[in-house]
């Protein structure tokens, strides 16, 4: 046990002294938070241009329109469907909400069949995502109202507040995810370096089991990741008043899961390289696009087609999604379940690859 503690400590010192790893993980995340916080901190608060097409003309639809108008994050324009759709195409609207005829009546009759239609402007993914969040929260509010109490549609005010995201609110959880990627995928370079330099060969002449050394390295990186996240989150909360709506324990769990996912992938990657420089290049080549496609800086939920398929294969996408759900939306286990399962699948697949292909010497 004392031996294992020494191993973890030595590995921790090693990782701590690799400035490139610290700079590319914590350094990059902190700089991003500072830039987005100070330069674009309020950018996200620009009002969403929402066109409302009221085809229902009922008391309920008037009530809904009025609620929307009172929402600080929305700028409402009312009009007919043709005009509003044209405005959406011209980029003058971020989204158009269509309240179909009979909506009020259906809602009053227990809500069966009541639905709203929303058209999004996909050209700006950030706004599109924010609009989606805003509208779905409104719909959510309507549904809850319909289910629980009779009377006029009311909005869940807390839900509305939560979706009024500044850029920094959106970016901060993305940086939590990105940090985990940069800090832990590079374990591949470390393992290949040991093998390439013959360090593992020297260790092979000692009674030290390779698995103990690898575990020591993984644990050291996990500890470093947690320490870095504490610094990053404290900074974001202190400087920019980032609200963490979700459970802190759940957040910690997802952070650990994310770190382990990246470590497992790095471990698998190390099986396929003989030169640490080549491993480094490969990790960079994967990490850099994933940093953006994984949605660390801007939302990628709305992207479809080939790009969408790629995005939905990326572990960082699911990690960021889970983190954002917890931090921004206060989501619980039910909401992040899918993301957690995908990350677990990545861990299992990576370990299988490692088990088949990894060579210590």
């Amino acid at each position, binding site marked *: 046990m*004392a*031996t294992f503690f*020494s*191993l973890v400590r*030595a590995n921790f*010192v*090693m*990782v701590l*002294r*690799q400035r490139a790893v610290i700079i590319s993980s914590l350094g990059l995340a902190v700089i991003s938070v500072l830039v987005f916080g100070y330069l674009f901190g309020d950018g996200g608060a620009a009002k969403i241009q929402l066109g409302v097409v009221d085809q229902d003309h009922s008391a309920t639809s008037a009530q809904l329109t009025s609620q929307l108008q009172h929402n600080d994050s929305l700028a409402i324009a009312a009009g007919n469907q043709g005009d509003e759709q044209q405005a959406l195409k011209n980029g003058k609207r971020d989204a158009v909400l269509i309240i179909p005829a009979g909506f009020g009546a259906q809602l009053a009759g227990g809500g069966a069949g009541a639905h709203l239609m929303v058209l999004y402007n996909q050209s700006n993914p950030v706004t599109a995502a924010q609009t989606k969040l805003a509208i779905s929260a409104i719909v959510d509010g309507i549904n809850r109202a319909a289910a629980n109490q009779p009377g006029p549609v009311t909005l869940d005010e807390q839900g509305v507040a939560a979706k009024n995201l500044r850029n920094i609110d959106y970016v901060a959880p993305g940086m939590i995810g990105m940090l985990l990627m940069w800090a832990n995928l590079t374990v591949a370079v470390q393992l290949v370096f040991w093998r390439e*330099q*013959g*360090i593992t*060969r*020297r*260790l*092979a*002449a*000692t*009674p*030290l089991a390779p698995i103990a050394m690898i575990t020591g390295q993984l644990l050291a990186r996990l500890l470093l990741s947690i320490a870095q996240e504490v610094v990053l989150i404290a900074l974001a909360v202190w400087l920019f008043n980032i609200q963490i709506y979700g459970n802190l324990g759940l957040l910690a769990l997802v952070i650990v899961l994310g770190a382990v996912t990246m470590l497992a992938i790095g471990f698998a990657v190390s099986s396929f390289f003989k030169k640490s420089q080549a491993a480094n290049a490969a990790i960079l080549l994967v990490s850099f696009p994933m940093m953006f496609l994984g949605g660390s800086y801007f939302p990628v939920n709305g992207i479809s087609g080939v790009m969408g398929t790629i995005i939905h294969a990326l572990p960082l996408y699911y990690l960021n999604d889970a983190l954002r759900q917890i931090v921004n939306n206060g989501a619980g286990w039910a909401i992040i379940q899918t993301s957690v399962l995908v990350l677990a699948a990545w861990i299992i697949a990576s370990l299988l690859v490692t088990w088949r292909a990894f060579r210590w*010497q």
Partner: protein
Amino acid sequence: MTQVELHSLSGAATPAASEIMLDVQSLVKRYGSRTAVNGVSFQVRRGEIFGLLGPNGAGKTTTLEMIEGIRTPDGGTALVGGLDIRKEKRAVQRIIGVQLQATSLFPELNVQETIQFFGAVYPKALKAKDLLALVNLSEKARAFPQDLSGGQRQRLALALALVNDPQIIFLDEPTAGLDPQSRRMLWDTVLSLRERGKTVILTTHYMDEAQVLCDRIAILDQGQIIALDTAAGLIGRLGAQSTIDCKLDGGAQASEVSELPGVTKVREANGRFVLQTRQMEPTLLALLRYATERGSALTDLQVRTPTLEDVFLDLTGRELRPEQA
């Protein structure tokens, strides 16, 4: 990990001198169609310094690495301290110390931390401070391996080989690439290990090193031991003769010189005499007396004894180190 005091290094309390510490039987290692080690057998007793001498590619390193548990033999076995390396690898590795031909270390750990790291791997370990003093590296405790000179790095590698206070120490070309002063220093340390009752197995392709350090030498060529004896025994087996080369003026005669004791052959040209002898010392004394009695001035005296280089040349018909010959 318990720290033990350095003086326990000297604690080999009068062991039976004949105790076999290493018993290598018919080791074989193949790489594809090439047989790198082809049936190597030898035994090393406690307190011996045993040398594996041979050219590059002779199989020295592969032989050591099989005994150290780094490589798995394709045939044969090695009993290290009575333990079978194939069956009890970890137990063997706890009682041996290893210096590889090139030791690369963690670039992020300084010298002291590196020693502590390796110490932590064993159930018992010597203190870093004492080890650094032993290999004369105390002032470099805070330096990083990549900032050390070649000699300092070799001494660090030796310290790591000693960190678990091993009974048997394997040194693979410990002085390769070192300057003469560093080599001497390493020799002294290796000799001090024998004084402390340690058993040392080293490889080298420097015959002077083998001659100075080793109690017994196995000459390896093409994966096989072609001779095994003490340095003196190997050279003596050659039946080789020493050569005395000198200038004698005042009309010294080759016929008279050839009468001197032990002399087997004399060549003479322009007052320069080259004598072959089986008994170098009596011949040399007689030659000096002869010169004095005749009043001849004896100048440019050179005496050459045969070396392991000559032995290797004799056994294989090739130079031991052609690149440096």
